[in-house]
């Protein structure tokens, strides 16, 4: 638990209660029942519970969309219905309720205007966020034509347009593919590192477990359990040792040592990879191979203004793309691969300087992480060649290895 009790809580609920009444003012449903909650700055807090447990109602009261029947909710020490508070909040609802006929750029621009961001800043953040959520290619299409997952990505982008101090996410990963899910987790981690507060409401336990410092479990409108994730999940009666691959003889020796010390070996097995990790590696590789998609595209880490870094690869890609659109005609022999236009030494120097800066920043960010090594944003991951080979063995006529090498060789 990293909450500092001396700090003023960002979110505070005291005996928060919500009763839904019918037309004749008769009590119908007790949605939230005397919930006490405190979330401190920099905390990533998870609100867990099955469907209909009162999570969303609690969140809506914290956003001023519903008013408590009794009890008090405070955000940044003020009532949630205070307009001033809203400038510091980012909210991603459980579904993306967007203007169907606006495109992604117009949508984000609109929300940026509500925060009174100036034109240059709005444009910068809009570009970065759309790039971040991988909707650059679909950015000019009306949002109404988006798939559910793509709409969710815009929902995430709009929640971040004001670089919020408190990010409230209601079922953030519903409808998202694992890449989008991973990205939301990255955003949460980076905001957490920057001292921002995140309130996450979900019934997908794996998501909460991955990112949350503290969780509360709700049922029947009441808070049934609350505490740090590590405290709640630690199994003190079991010990797990992880090492490299062992031969049978060594395993036998270890077993003997354990049994000699009076303990019992419960299980010995090779750990399996998580399906999420495998999926991310495969998609990452496909994106490196520049396979076409009409949906959401490669995600370039987390936007700079949110404290993330644009991956070195994307900077190079941008410059290469710019070079391709030059007016100078390039003669290409039909049988030979086209040579990439040479970059000017000046541009080269700028790129190198920028990349070095980015790399340093990334290192510093890594050092700042206190919770041990975590998975880095997608494009920085190395493709797992063995996995890819296994997957593509049957289908593709082109050996992926050549493409992969080519792609990698172009990147520092």
């Amino acid at each position, binding site marked *: 638990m990293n909450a500092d009790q001396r700090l003023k809580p960002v979110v505070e609920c005291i005996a928060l209660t919500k009763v*839904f009444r019918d037309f004749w*003012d008769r009590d119908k*449903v007790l*949605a939230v029942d005397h919930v006490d909650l405190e979330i401190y700055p920099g905390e990533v807090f998870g609100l867990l519970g099955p469907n*209909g447990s*009162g999570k*969303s*109602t609690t969140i*809506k009261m914290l*956003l*001023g*969309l*519903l*008013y*408590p*029947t*009794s009890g008090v909710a405070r955000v940044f020490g*003020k*009532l949630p*219905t*205070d*307009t*001033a508070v*809203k*400038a510091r*909040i980012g*909210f991603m*609802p459980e*579904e993306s*309720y*967007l*203007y*169907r*006929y*606006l495109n992604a750029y*117009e949508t984000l621009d*609109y*929300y940026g*205007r*509500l*925060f*009174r961001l100036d034109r240059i800043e709005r444009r910068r953040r809009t570009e970065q966020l759309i790039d971040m959520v991988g909707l650059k290619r679909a950015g000019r299409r*009306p949002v109404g034509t988006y798939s559910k997952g793509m709409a969710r990505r815009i929902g995430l982008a*709009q929640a971040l347009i*004001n670089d919020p101090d408190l990010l409230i996410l209601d079922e953030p990963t519903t409808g998202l593919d694992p890449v989008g899910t991973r990205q939301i987790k990255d955003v949460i981690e980076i905001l957490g590192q920057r001292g921002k507060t995140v309130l996450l409401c979900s019934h997908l336990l794996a998501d909460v477990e991955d990112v949350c410092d503290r969780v509360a479990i709700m049922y029947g409108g009441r808070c049934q359990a609350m505490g740090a994730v590590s405290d709640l999940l630690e199994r003190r009666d079991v010990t797990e040792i992880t090492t490299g691959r062992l031969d049978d003889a060594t395993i036998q020796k270890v077993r003997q040592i354990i049994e000699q010390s009076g303990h019992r070996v419960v299980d010995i097995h090779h750990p399996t990879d998580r399906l999420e990790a495998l999926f991310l590696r495969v998609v990452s590789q496909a994106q490196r191979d520049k396979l076409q998609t009409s949906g959401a595209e490669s995600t370039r880490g987390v936007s700079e203004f949110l404290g993330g870094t644009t991956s070195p690869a994307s900077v190079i890609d941008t410059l290469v793309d710019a070079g391709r659109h030059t007016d100078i005609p390039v003669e290409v022999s039909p049988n030979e691969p086209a040579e990439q236009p040479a970059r000017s030494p000046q541009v080269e120097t700028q790129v190198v300087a920028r990349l070095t800066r980015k790399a340093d920043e990334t290192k510093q960010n890594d050092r700042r992480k206190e919770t041990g090594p975590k998975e880095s944003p997608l494009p920085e991951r190395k493709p797992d060649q063995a996995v890819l080979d296994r997957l593509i063995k049957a289908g593709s006529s082109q050996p992926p290895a050549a493409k992969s090498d080519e792609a990698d060789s172009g990147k520092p």
Partner: protein
Amino acid sequence: MPAPSTTALDENTFFMIMFTFGSLMGLVTLVYVIKQAFSRQSGEVGGWELRGARQRIAAVVRTTLAEGLRARVASGFALLILISIPIFWLTAEGDGTIKGKVQMFITYSLGLTSFLLAVLTILFSCRSLSVEIASRQIYGIATKPIPRWQIVVGKWLGVMTLNVALIAIACLMTWAGTRANVSRFKKDLEFDLITYGSLTPSQAADTIAALANVRGVGKEGMESPIIASFASQLGKTHEEIGDMLLRLPESTRVNLRRFDELRRQVLVARTIIPAPLPDFSKDIDEVYKALREQGRLPEDWSDRRIREQIYKELVGGYCAIGPGEVRVWRMQGPPPQEGRDWVMGLRFKIRAMRQPLATQVGGITLETDSLLGRWILGDPRTSAYIETIDQYPINTFTEIEIPQQGVEKDGTVIVNFQNIDPRQIDAIFDLPTGDLQVLYRVGSWELAMLQAALAMLIPLSCLAAFGVCASTFLSFPVGTLIVLTLYIISSSMGFVADSLAVSREYAPPEHDRTLVYEVRRLTVESIGFALSIGDLDPVNKLMEGLAIGWKPLADTAWKYLLAKGVIVLTLGVFILRRRELAAVIV
């Protein structure tokens, strides 16, 4: 056994019963609303500072407009307007003359525009917030730092921006279409003058230019002032011009007169002075006194009711002109101005006591639904007067022009009417509703068009305020139904006023005003105000070359846009600030 009389219930008693019932219902509603408003913990807090309001409101306006246009709600209506106006331009014929054509084009194009815009405003404003609340798009806005009043104002401004744009386009198209009609007429006339009138092209062009210099109006048996204008322009004698005109086709000659009328009666901005009613208070007292002395006062009638009845009868008697009778009105206009286009008009509507049927009198056929009358305009004791005898259609407005000599130097116009119809029918001018008016020019047609455009915006702004307010707490279909009903009722306000049995003609003297009378007057006036949306009938006025006038425009804008619109929008803001925006999901 005699049937129980329904008149036994005194009018005021009946009113008080209904008033008490209505007040009770109103009170119950008010208590419910207040209870709802204050039962929850709170509504929105703060948000009244104006810093950044402009930018946020502008953002809401932009998005409202973009959504409306792309969702094909607004764009469909806009397209319909843009397509219909050219179609009307091509098809509007009227009575076949240039005047009829132009008048019909103006009525159709602007009439359709104002109707379509009213429907568009109702649909667009009623869906503005209700759809966002129902589809939860409001979550994205209400959780951003925009106060809810700015959302309401933004929505209203979004609807009004669209209205302003569409009215501007429609007026511009109508203006261009009318000007095109006029220039097409002039081209046809030029052709006829060259072909039939044997004029050279330059003479024809000069003749057409002379149309703008026609002074005065023609009258029966006198030479048309058009001839004088042509003669002076071409340097020819009146006889030569007369011969030349006789060689033109009949339709062209008719159109020449109609064009002159169009120039002076339609493509101008004129104002109206209604014929005044005399002060009857002394007469009422006299009649009342006489009746009392004769012991003929109805015993079960209140004093006020008797006086009201006497007033009604006096007005009715004054407005009715029996066979052979003469009535004289003195109207006060502005002092006559020197100006070549300066012409006054007399506009009237004769109602007949019974339907006049066609008959032959002394070799003249008197048509069905027309009355034979004699107007003398100007002081008949001097030589500067004009007399005209004609059959005038009943129940429809007719306009006669008064030449400058018919108006005295201080702007007084003396109007005589004699009912000379041999069918022995009373002619009635309903003066309280403005059946007899004097008109005079106050500016160009463009001014009249501008005022008409602004007047068209007032009811739309009022409807938009109602729509946006309704959308803060009603669903789209319910809100639309209610505002549409309001629009229909307000469009037939005369009927509503009649059904409420309002007698505004006669107010009892101060000392005679009872509490019931005041309560009743206030109730009727509030209902009238609540149900009306400030329709100044701009399209018909524009068709008749009538300027609405800046003062009536300002008065109506103040009453319906600023007072009523702001009250309704404030109510919408209040509701949106108090209400919970999230749906009930457990």
